[in-house]
């Protein structure tokens, strides 16, 4: 059995990121019914997630955690021996889904909203139960040799 090559990942940063995704999608979803321009939050969130996947220093919610919440003791850190790649992959996947949702928002609003809602549901499942669908997809791709650590 190979020894996992892990590093320390602060799971509180991941939780804050997921909570940010849920909150933003909910604001866009509910607020969009009353004030349609709020739907612009969905493409903005897609950009934030995609940027954060490739440049962690641009991950808005994680930076908010590291620069504001953690130093002020509002959220306590939770370091876990883990690999960051599956989480980044999951975040990127969420970003891609939100980007597709953004494309659909104008011609088929309900479909764009449904896709965004699914991303929020998956983020909620991750926050509440620790189940990360993106990480499972990462495992399947790695198992088939399509991804290398």
């Amino acid at each position, binding site marked *: 059995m190979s020894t996992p090559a892990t590093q320390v990942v602060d799971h509180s940063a991941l939780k804050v990121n997921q909570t940010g995704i849920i909150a933003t999608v909910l604001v866009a979803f509910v607020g969009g019914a009353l004030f349609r321009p709020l739907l612009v939050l969905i493409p903005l969130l897609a950009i934030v997630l995609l940027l954060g996947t490739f440049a962690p220093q641009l991950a808005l919610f994680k930076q908010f955690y590291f620069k504001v919440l953690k130093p002020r003791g509002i959220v306590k850190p939770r370091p876990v021996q883990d690999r960051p790649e599956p989480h980044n992959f999951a975040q990127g996947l969420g970003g891609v889904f939100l980007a597709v949702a953004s494309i659909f928002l104008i011609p088929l609003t*309900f479909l764009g909203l449904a896709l965004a809602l699914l991303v929020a549901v998956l983020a909620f499942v991750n926050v509440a139960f*620790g189940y990360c669908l993106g*990480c499972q997809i990462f495992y399947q791709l*790695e198992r088939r040799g399509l991804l290398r650590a």
Partner: protein
Amino acid sequence: MSAQLWALAVAGIVVLAAACLETFRSRRARRLVLATSPSPSVPRRGAAPINGEEQPYILYFTGDSCTVCRTHQEPALARLGDVRVDKVDAIAERTLADRFHVYTLPTTVVMGADGQPLHVNYGYAPAPKLERQLAEARVMSLRSAATA
């Protein structure tokens, strides 16, 4: 507002369909593992039997990409006490993982004293569930020892 309602309906249907698909998938995989004739018996790996007697044990499939394994499954396995846990890297030992149709991590397999799989749990299995399955496995071992 109607777009929001339609979106809720579509998302609800997708979530429901995914839940049904997952249930079907895990049941099918479990059936394949438990009903395969002959069952995929696995030789013991590592340490000697506890107290010189063969005991049921757990085959624990994990991987370094599995966070739930570290945050949930491993603490649950640690709570089981004296039970033997054989940890298997599902990526490195793909053949063994395929024998048990491991499609998700963590996966735990409760093995009987004879090395036959008795219970398969795809996804996180809490300690009480594993304890119950191990107790059943011990009863089965005693029965088979009595009839032998």
